[in-house]
């Protein structure tokens, strides 16, 4: 069980943890994670935000990581989304993409729909789940003092990395995203591959 304190505000904590976002190809899950990353990157072409495919972000990131081994791929997702696709952690553990880092922004609730509690609010431990799925390098971040080491780990680890970022229930930053998924996908591919 994970009963870590939740003191960090995601609006400050996510940018602090990620640092220079250009270091990564970033895939973000829907809702809060998309707003965290959209606000941080302004949807620069190294960013792909999912919408309406709850649970899908982890595998998009895994696919990128498998085929772009020289790039660092960062998945930013939420506890609600990850709970919907726990099998994704098992698949990542089985494939072991060396260049994939995962940040789960855990606010213990479905913030987008009115703060209903997720299972992590009852102590379900996503860090332990990641470890059980074969992701050997994991961190629990509950304070700013732990940010620097975790931020470096996102960039340096030789294998999949999982960082559980415990945050308060404060809302994510306001950000109005591009809902045309085909446009953002095309921009991403063009930046990465030079083609649509």
């Amino acid at each position: 069980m994970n009963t870590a304190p939740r003191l960090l505000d995601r609006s400050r904590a996510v940018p602090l943890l990620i640092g220079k976002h250009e270091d990564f190809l970033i895939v973000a899950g829907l809702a809060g994670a998309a707003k965290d990353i959209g606000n941080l990157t302004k949807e620069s072409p190294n960013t792909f935000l999912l919408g309406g495919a709850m649970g899908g972000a982890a595998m998009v990131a895994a696919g990128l990581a498998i085929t772009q081994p020289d790039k660092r791929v960062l998945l930013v997702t939420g506890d609600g989304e990850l709970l919907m696709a726990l099998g994704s952690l098992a698949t990542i553990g089985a494939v072991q993409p060396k260049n994939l880092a995962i940040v789960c922004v855990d606010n213990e609730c479905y913030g987008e729909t009115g703060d209903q509690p997720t299972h992590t609010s009852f102590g379900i431990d996503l860090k332990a789940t990641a470890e059980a799925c074969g992701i050997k390098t994991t961190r629990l971040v509950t304070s700013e003092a732990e940010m620097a080491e975790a931020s470096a780990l996102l960039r340096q680890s030789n294998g999949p990395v999982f960082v559980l970022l415990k945050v308060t229930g404060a809302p994510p930053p306001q950000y109005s995203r591009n809902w045309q998924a085909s446009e953002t996908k095309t921009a991403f591919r063009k930046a990465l591959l030079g083609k649509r």
Partner: protein
Amino acid sequence: MNDITAAAPPAPVAVAEAISGEAIAREIADMGVTHVITVPDTNLKTAIAALEKAQRVKMLYVCTEDEGMGINAGLYMAGLKPMMLIQNNGLYACINTLKAIALDAQVPTFMLIGQYGRDVTKTVEENRLRSVRLLEPTLETWGVPSFRLEHKTDIGNIRLAWQKAWEIVGPTAAIIGAPTS
């Protein structure tokens, strides 16, 4: 008095015939597919075995079809040419991801789908199981082009469906009507 020389009733004639798993695997590799992403299907087990044996295409086993849709998109966004191998029930399991990733984000998503549970002596429309009967109407509802493979001579429909996915930059399906041999 019974006529013991009378012929037994004729066996039901198959409407869909078995297509060789090796032929399917060969066609997939020849098309230039880089990865086959699969939640395995019983009806396609010999095709999966042939793909594994030939080692011309990378196999990726995932836990759910939703995962498959996601990783297919990730591979495509990174410049590769993946496809999915699933069964009819798997298609139903991933409709939201089909909508949000393959359709909305416009990702070429070729699905080779086995008609699990089909009585091959009946047409699709005459089959009792809704998982068999409703596959094509479901795809049609979402505007996903589909191609049937009912006979050995239909093998070229795999390539047609694959090419269509790249042409429309979206999802398509090739439906294998009978268990592969």
